[in-house]
């Protein structure tokens, strides 16, 4: 069962949320980030090349121009491989754990898995980020020493940064599964 809805991120960009339910205990949320816009790419390339041309007119060394082309290409490749995240996925399996996957624009995927024994709760937290206050979804991990304490906060959807309406959807879904999990694990 797959449902796709359009939301927006904190800067106003377009995000697509896909919800899939595999079983009563297992749900997946895929958040697609806005694509690399042609406008920003052109602007970055033009600034680098204008600066290089300025340097060339100053020092009359044509190596500056070839170096600028090289830098632009390498920079673009590095950006696509290490920085630009295409899609973020949150897979929550009731009895097993929570898995977060980020897939980059170059195809690279990085995955983090947290087992259910460590998860205390999934909450929407507010914090100051740059010059804004944003809502973000995070996983609270249990403290082994203190039963009621929180040892770590793991934010999810870090590069997509959706707004509150999208977060509430994901939060309610996750809480349904966590409540089911508590019922089945609480009863002997």
């Amino acid at each position, binding site marked *: 069962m797959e449902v796709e809805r359009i939301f927006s991120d904190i800067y106003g960009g377009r995000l697509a949320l896909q919800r899939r339910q595999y079983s009563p205990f297992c749900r997946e949320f895929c958040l697609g980030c806005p694509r690399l816009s042609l406008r920003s790419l052109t602007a970055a390339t033009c600034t680098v090349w204008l600066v290089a041309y300025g340097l060339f007119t100053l020092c009359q060394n044509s190596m500056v121009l070839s170096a600028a082309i090289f830098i632009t290409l390498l920079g673009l490749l590095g950006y696509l491989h290490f920085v630009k995240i295409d899609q973020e996925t949150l897979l929550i399996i009731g009895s097993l754990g929570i898995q977060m996957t980020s897939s980059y624009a170059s195809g690279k995927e990085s995955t983090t898995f947290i087992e259910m024994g460590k998860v205390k709760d999934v*909450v929407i937290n507010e*914090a100051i980020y740059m010059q804004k206050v944003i809502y973000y979804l*995070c996983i*609270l991990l249990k403290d082994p020493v203190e039963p009621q304490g*929180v040892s*770590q*906060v793991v934010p999810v959807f870090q590069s997509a940064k959706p707004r509150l*309406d999208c977060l509430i959807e994901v939060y309610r879904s996750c*809480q349904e599964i966590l409540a089911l999990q508590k019922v089945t694990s609480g009863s002997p």
Partner: protein
Amino acid sequence: MVENSPSPLPERAIYGFVLFLSSQFGFMLYLVWAFIPETWLNSIGLTYWPQKYWAVALPVYLLITIVITYILIFGINMVNTSRLDSVHTVTDNYAKNQPQKKSQEKAVLALKDIPISEVNQMFFIAARGLYPQS
């Protein structure tokens, strides 16, 4: 018990007048030092005054310090803001060590820190009317 009130008192009038006189005297002294040529001051007998360079340098230092203070305070605030994955956004030592008092019936609850899970349940699950479900 002595009350601290901002009302005018005779002693405060004297403090104010002394402050006014001394600030006016200091300003006049500064103008004399800055403008009257070195030779005239030497002929009067005042030979061991600081260089006139400082008459311009010190105000410039002061103004630059003020400008940098604005930028520095902004920067210090940004550095001290907790990151998104810091546990300080959720709790702190005071909240962890708060005393657990039993609430009496029909009394207003004492002020305490509510855990974030409960707050979220209250906002997003219990009170569905607050945030319209699109």
